């Protein structure tokens, strides 16, 4: 008999006023009983609408059925067939727009907590399973993967399972890409990312850090070294700025820099050797997940007032709903329908304020969202000492500028042929933010997955 509670089993979390002072994980995860209870809310629909909305097409009803029957290892096996990083996805996927958005239980109540169950299964496996991954039989073909973010790791995992000898090249000193430099510890503990990476290594994947492809080795040279195909998952690149006066003042960060200092370099710790400004009044410009991460990190560094400054309304915020709710609970102040026009500095070149205008929503624009327009005579100054720009990125130039024949579009994104990620260079595939511009972890994983399949076919048919 299914559990007909219209609401999801609540997720235990740290109290908002406790967690906004530490970097430990906010959501604590289901207990065994809570997971089984939530799994019983699934109606096991025959047509599986949830699965069709998952970018990596996990057989969701089947894994949830295993959880309901307390076969956690069985559930893990089903998820693993489709996803290389379940502990990560269970935490950071925008489920409300994907699987949970299509859940039948969501029509008259709350959808099944699919993300929470996925997280539970992955965590349970990590804590209880001692079984080592089986190293597949080698097929003697070599593939190079550029970038060890979600897209590259997914492609590497899928190819390794097919018997390919995969080398992942990472520019930074640590593997994980945005999972280690971008997403904060309180949302995605780095020990979990490390474990997922160790799993790939157990499958025989080589990870070479400190390797900037395009500089130390070019893509052409990778082919000379015997790699038969290359997957480019180099991610999003340079941060965008607004082009308003004062953006070079001390105290203006890009979200990338602010988060990299905190997450990769651990500057939130007392003993870190990398500095960061602990602002008292902080404005984060932008409304996406990255903006929420930056705002909540600034709060945890001890800021008294942290503002999200966004030019559209609350309804239009592109961030995951849960992140917005968590941010509000933690005391982040939302200044929506507000746009900065100038950063003000003191005589030492430090930020002391931000001149803004109020906005109102006009006619829908090409994105379908209502276009924000400036309200006349609405100028005001927000007192701040730190400003974090989180308005997106443009793709990294290192690979396109050193790979002849690799076509990019006017934004600098690598051009690919449909879902397979085939670029204009034979044997070179690409996916993730390097192709789409800044998007989500799961879309990058989906691209890695499709490309791995396409690479397998390409090498087999060569």
């Amino acid at each position, binding site marked *: 008999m299914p559990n007909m509670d219209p609401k999801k089993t609540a997720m235990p979390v740290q109290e908002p006023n406790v967690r906004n002072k530490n970097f430990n994980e906010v959501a604590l995860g289901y207990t065994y009983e809570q997971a089984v209870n939530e799994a019983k809310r699934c109606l096991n629909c025959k047509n599986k609408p949830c699965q069709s909305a998952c970018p990596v097409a996990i057989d969701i009803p089947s894994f949830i059925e295993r959880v309901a029957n307390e076969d956690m290892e069985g559930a893990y096996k089903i998820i693993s067939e489709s996803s290389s990083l379940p502990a990560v996805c269970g935490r950071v996927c925008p489920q409300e727009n994907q699987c949970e958005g299509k859940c039948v239980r969501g029509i008259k109540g709350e959808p099944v907590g699919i993300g929470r169950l996925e997280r539970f299964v992955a965590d349970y496996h990590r804590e209880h399973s001692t079984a080592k991954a089986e190293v597949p039989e080698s097929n003697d073909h070599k593939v190079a993967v550029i970038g060890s973010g979600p897209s590259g790791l997914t492609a590497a995992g899928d190819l390794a399972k097919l018997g390919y000898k995969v080398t992942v090249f990472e520019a930074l000193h640590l593997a994980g890409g945005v999972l280690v430099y971008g997403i904060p510890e309180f949302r995605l503990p780095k020990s979990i990312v490390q474990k997922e990476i160790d799993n790939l290594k157990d499958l025989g994947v080589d990870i070479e850090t400190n390797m900037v492809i395009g500089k130390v080795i070019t893509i052409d040279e990778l082919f000379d070294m015997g790699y038969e195909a290359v997957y480019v998952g180099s991610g999003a690149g340079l941060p965008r700025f607004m082009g308003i006066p004062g953006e070079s003042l001390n105290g203006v960060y890009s979200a990338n820099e602010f988060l990299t200092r905190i997450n990769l370099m651990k500057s939130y710790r007392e003993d870190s050797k990398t500095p960061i400004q602990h602002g008292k009044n902080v404005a984060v410009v932008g409304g996406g997940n990255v903006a929420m991460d930056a705002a909540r990190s600034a709060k945890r560094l001890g800021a008294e007032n942290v503002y999200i400054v966004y030019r559209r309304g609350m309804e239009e915020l592109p961030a995951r709903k849960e992140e917005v709710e968590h941010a509000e609970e933690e005391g982040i102040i939302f200044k929506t329908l507000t746009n900065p026009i100038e950063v003000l500095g003191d005589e030492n070149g430090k930020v002391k304020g931000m001149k803004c205008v109020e906005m109102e929503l006009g006619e829908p624009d090409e994105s379908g969202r209502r276009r924000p327009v400036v309200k006349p005579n609405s100028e005001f100054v927000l007192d701040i000492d730190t400003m974090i720009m989180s308005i997106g990125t443009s793709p*990294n130039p290192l690979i396109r500028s050193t790979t002849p024949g690799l076509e990019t579009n006017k934004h600098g994104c690598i051009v690919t042929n449909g879902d397979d990620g085939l670029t204009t260079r034979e044997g070179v595939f690409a996916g993730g933010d390097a192709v789409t511009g800044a998007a989500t972890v799961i879309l990058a994983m989906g691209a890695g997955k499709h490309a791995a399949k396409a690479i397998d076919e390409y090498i087999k048919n060569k």
Partner: protein
Amino acid sequence: MKLFRIVKKEALNPTVGKMVIEAPLIAKKAEPGQFVILRSNEDSERIPLTIGDYDREKGTITIIYQIVGGGTMELDRKKEGESLHDFVGPLGVASHLEGLKKVAVVGGGVGCAIAYPIAKKLHELGSEVHSIVGFRNKDLVILEEDFKAVSDKLVMMTDDGSYGEKGLVTHALENLIGEGNQYDEIIAIGPVIMMKFVTEVAKKHNIKIVVSMNPIMIDGTGMCGGCRLTVGGETKFACVDGPDFDGTLVDFDEAMKRGGMYKEFEQHAREAECNLLKKEVE
């Protein structure tokens, strides 16, 4: 795990050290003007350092560093035979040195470590090289013999006149131009304030001026945006657009302010590192 072994280490003066690092892949590709990012230990800060020299056969990269903060003190405590935890490069765009007939290379302080490979490459390419190198005093002079070997003319300047001629590099540059030397280009590398004033001289005489910027940086690969500069009114990133820029377009005053962003933290880190040293001595 890859090892970046310190093949050789020497002190060039009391505050400047030199290390030759085993990094064959980087040595194969390095060009003058490019840089590396290193971390001495697993918990160290990432430090960008310009490539001082490279040996493609031996597979080594030479770095020259001024011991100024916690990070460089930590680096300097490493001994010959030990290894650096991380060493990545070559980063940045190489200097464009082809086709120049006569060039003035101006180096200030530890900036001479970057100026030297440029002078050397120009010499190899057959350019006439006039090097002007400046230091605060005699004790801080580095690379004199190296510069001599690759320069058609070498002018040594010290602020206090304790070695070479007394005065600033800009004076020497003015003198050389005044003597009728016609340069295709001036390349200036050193403290931002020095590059600013060399640029003024170049502008006055309508000579092309290239400066090498060394701003605060984290990843060095075009991700964090910390190294941004205003060049010709636009935001540029030293790590992927530079580090060389047309001096007449660089907003030096802004770059100086941005360079001082973490002064207090650095002061603190330096003290912490000194205390650590003291303890070891005791």
